[in-house]
């Protein structure tokens, strides 16, 4: 009985001055990290390995459906880089009705935490090019 009392005492002591504090600290850490960690999820529903055929009349091509979402509000921009040919420029990247900013100093702001729809790429060229590749680099920033 005495032994148990001592044990309880030790336990109380620890829980008030040590273990409890650690717990509180841990919880605070977990919550703060949860609140701070901003994640970005991208889902695309097209075959990125396929060759996309440009509409000659409008000089644009529909890539497919893309879904970009986060747990927080975010902003982003896209940098398209034409790799194989010269004389071709990407004039716009559109997801549903929204043209995505191609300027790092004024990114597109996504206040509802998600953007979903068909991605359409707009080109500009005088002479129709041979097959070429474009690297699209999306940069996501916390708001």
């Amino acid at each position: 009985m005495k032994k148990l009392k001592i044990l309880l005492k030790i336990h109380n002591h620890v829980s008030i001055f040590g273990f409890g504090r650690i717990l509180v600290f841990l919880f605070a850490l977990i919550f703060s990290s949860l609140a701070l960690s901003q994640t970005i999820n991208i889902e695309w529903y097209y075959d990125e390995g396929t060759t996309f055929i440009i509409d000659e009349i409008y000089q644009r091509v529909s890539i497919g459906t893309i879904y970009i979402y986060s747990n927080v509000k975010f902003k982003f921009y896209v940098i398209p880089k034409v790799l194989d040919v010269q004389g071709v420029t990407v004039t716009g990247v559109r997801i549903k009705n929204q043209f995505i900013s191609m300027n790092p100093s004024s990114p597109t702001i996504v206040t509802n935490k998600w953007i979903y729809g068909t991605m359409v790429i707009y080109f500009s060229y005088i002479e129709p090019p041979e097959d070429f590749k474009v690297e699209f680099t999306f940069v996501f920033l916390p708001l």
Partner: protein
Amino acid sequence: MEQKLFKVFVLITTLIALKSFASGTFYALIEPGGTTWSQILTFTVKQTVKVEWQYDETQPIAVDRGDSESVVGFIRIYSNKQFKISANVYVAETSIQPLVVPKQVKIGSETIGVGEVLVVTPKNLQGNLSVVFEIDWENLQAEEFPVVLEFTFYPF
């Protein structure tokens, strides 16, 4: 038991179908300095060819007796990309075939031998279209005979 197996089969096929549906995902933390995701896509322009001719294809075309050449008229063939062209010319009537042998087709300054392939580098070919024959004038009785011109276009 069979019904259960069938259900499993349906489930598996649906899963495979979903899996094979082209798609992908990306997941990352947004870093304060920015998180990047990039994708390289390949693009192409469909190749087309357009032919314009400024002659009446229903009218008889004279063949020069001297060099067995027949000038048809102005033609323009153009594409949005580089292309290759081959020409096939043949006399439709079998009785005339041994007497009139098509040799080559000329478009402007370019010459395409019958059955040969010409690479069109500046994407367009234009000028007077003429057909050169090898004619046995001694034995040729017919005054008029139809000739079929067949052009085939290939991607470069």
